[in-house]
């Protein structure tokens, strides 16, 4: 069910939600957190809401969408409440803020937070320079950004590092989870030799490639070189050099991963870019500070820039 409340206040939104629950029994399940999605007018808001609805099936939550509208207008708040089939296992409140109100997202958020439940804020588009200092970001235990959609993803990742505070995370990180799992599983197998050198390659503008290089540098404490690869986007390969040879995980076509190890047959598996909802679900699974992500960020300056084909211009 979708209920529109044009030109309204948060008190009216709250009243309406209680009314909907009493009247229709349109109740969300025992909710575990409030997810605040901050977007600018013109961002693909619906896509983010859809991902949040999917994630809510694993983590029942209240979703507040703060859509910042045009600022040169009179202050106004339009709200839309979605419950039941239109909201997955969550309840979604879309709040469109115009005029001077557009910058006052926190004031609109506070009255609608679930009592005593953690708050997660997610910027599916451009994120503030210092998420932890953002008025909405300050309300949250967990702040999710996405370097990959920034105008300059590599710069954005550097900015994430500079502004890191406990509770920050970036979707470039869960996009690596399967890669990291496969690499760790490969090292589980004998021979248990030390890795002496690492080479990673990926698209010039792939923050995930930098981040996995950082993670490997932090964990293995060996020289890590980051090369550019001529691929559509994202991470292309990771090579762990050991005395007996190379453990290499590569994804030349962006779909199928190939694991090669000395003296063993090539092993293949599907290794596609993870869909947004899977990444978001993973982020919502744990809300404590992610020290491993922090270590990976901290190790970024230790990565050696290698060569590769000329920088591809991405549209």
């Amino acid at each position, binding site marked *: 069910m979708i209920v529109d409340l044009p030109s309204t206040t948060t008190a009216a939104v709250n009243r309406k939600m209680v009314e909907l629950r009493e009247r229709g029994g349109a109740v969300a*399940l025992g909710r575990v957190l409030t997810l605040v999605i901050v977007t600018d007018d013109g961002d693909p808001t619906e896509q983010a809401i859809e991902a949040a609805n999917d994630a*809510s099936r694993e983590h029942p939550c209240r979703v507040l969408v703060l859509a910042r509208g045009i600022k040169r207008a009179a202050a106004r708040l339009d709200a839309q409440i979605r419950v039941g089939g239109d909201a997955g296992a969550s309840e979604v409140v879309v709040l469109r803020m115009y005029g001077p109100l557009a910058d006052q997202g926190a004031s609109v958020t506070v009255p609608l937070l679930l009592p005593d439940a953690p708050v997660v804020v997610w910027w599916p588009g451009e994120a503030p320079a210092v998420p932890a200092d953002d008025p909405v970001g300050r309300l949250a235990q967990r702040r999710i950004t996405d370097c990959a959609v920034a105008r300059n993803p590599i710069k954005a990742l550097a900015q994430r590092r500079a502004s890191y505070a406990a509770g920050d995370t970036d979707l470039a*990180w869960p996009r690596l989870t399967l890669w990291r799992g496969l690499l760790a599983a490969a090292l589980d197998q004998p021979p*248990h030799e030390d890795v002496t050198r690492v080479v990673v390659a990926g698209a010039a503008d792939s923050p995930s490639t930098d981040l996995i290089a950082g993670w490997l540098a932090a*964990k293995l404490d060996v020289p890590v070189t980051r090369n550019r690869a001529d691929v559509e986007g994202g991470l292309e390969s990771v090579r762990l050099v050991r005395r007996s040879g190379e453990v290499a995980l590569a994804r030349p076509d962006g779909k199928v991963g190939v694991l090669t190890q000395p003296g063993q047959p090539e092993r293949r598996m*599907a290794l*596609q870019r993870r869909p947004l909802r899977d990444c978001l679900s993973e982020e919502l699974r*744990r809300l404590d500070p992610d020290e*491993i992500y922090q270590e990976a960020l901290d190790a970024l300056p230790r990565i050696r820039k290698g060569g590769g084909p000329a920088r591809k211009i991405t549209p």
Partner: protein
Amino acid sequence: MRSLTDEWTNPLRDPRDKRLPRIAGPCGLVIFGVTGDLSRKKLMPAVYDLANRGLLPPGFALVGFARRDWADQDFEEIVHESVRQYARTPFRETVWRQLAKGIRFVQGSFDDDDAFDRLAQCVHQLDEVRGTSGNHAFYLSIPPSAFPVVCKQLARAGLATQRGDQWRRVVIEKPFGHDLMSARELNAIVNDVFPEESVFRIDHYLGKETVQNILALRFANQLYEPIWNSNYVDHVQITMAEDVGVGGRAGYYDGIGAARDVIQNHLLQLLALTAIEEPVSFRPRELRGEKVKVLSATGLMEPLEQTTARGQYVAGWQGGQWVQGLLEEDGFAKDSKTETYAAITLEINTRRWAGVPWFLRTGKRLGRRVTEIAVMFKRAPHLPFDTTAAEELGQNALVVRVQPDEGVTTRFGSKVPGTSMEVRDVTMDFAYGHAFTESSPEAYERLLLDVLLGEPSLFPSNEEVELCWEILDPVLDFWESAGRPEPYPAGSWGPKSADQMLARTGRKWRRP
């Protein structure tokens, strides 16, 4: 080379890194009985779902073994169909194509030496082509009567021997025997070929999220532990009710009956998890140790003619449909004594549980399909209300709803809105969001992955299985000598004797 005592740790693994998924090492799975229902509806889809979640190792191989005259492609087609129909995660062509490359089929019967030699050859080839590295799990989705011959064949063809770092594991399904004697024989046969740590006995209930949540509910909270004992608990009811009959399953069910089919495994496991003391950690050894402790303290309350009940459904209206009775079902003898309903009373002789009766019941063709654990608390010792005010107040209860509608319900007294003080029962529900979703793994997925990882926590050990038979055997013997099961109409909640069984102690069954 490092010495053996200097244990190697993987530098990429970090206990703080909670995102890192558990991906099994290189391995393959061989399924015996691929034409069966379980294999088509559960196992093969679970394999695909695991692949789709990225939890299977690169180069994973799936081998089917059956009598059908199929080529690899025919079997691939069967797997494809079952994945399309039953998988929980969306179908992705890339995932499927990679999985399909590792699918093989070996045709033969269990007594055919040649077929097992071909299987050995096939497995060996997979090690070379796919890189399964000599690690293989054998899933015996076949009747237990075939276990001895298959185990012997596996041993004969050299498939059961593990060399060096390689592993070979065997997965078996219930029934694990039909009494203590036969269970011991079965264990001996299997253990003759596979050492106990390589045997995984599947009880799919233990793979369910709600069942694992019993441990979280009990041991992660301060709220329940203080009242989780005989000072506060009046009794516990564990119910597994099914609305289906046993038509079409006569070959398996006739002579087995409800107690062996369900109480011996599922219900006693649920009892163990509800009753155990806090394990010092969740390591497999500790958890299994606690379960063994509580099961070894568990016994039947006597006299059995008053503390047990059994029944057999007769024709009746169930959920708007006329269904036939057990004796009319195909394949059952007209004088079959097989019980389709069984209820027993247990006591646990520990300080925590002394004096608390545990009522376990299960049945076919009951009112609806439901599995739940209801912990019923004692009444408050004194009620400071008028005698009429709290008349409607029942016992407080905590109910773990295992399936369907997974969750937890608490029942307590609350004021009836109005100007007078009256109290009645209300319920508070916690529901799992995942009930509607594919995002959390299905029981078989979880258990298959645990087999490939060699993680035995969720599998009952040999000792547990034998203890459960020790508990149940006296009832089975008693029923054997005590006439026929009592008829109950399909669609009801069981025979009258079951109600009397509780009424004698001043209690009654919850309507689940």
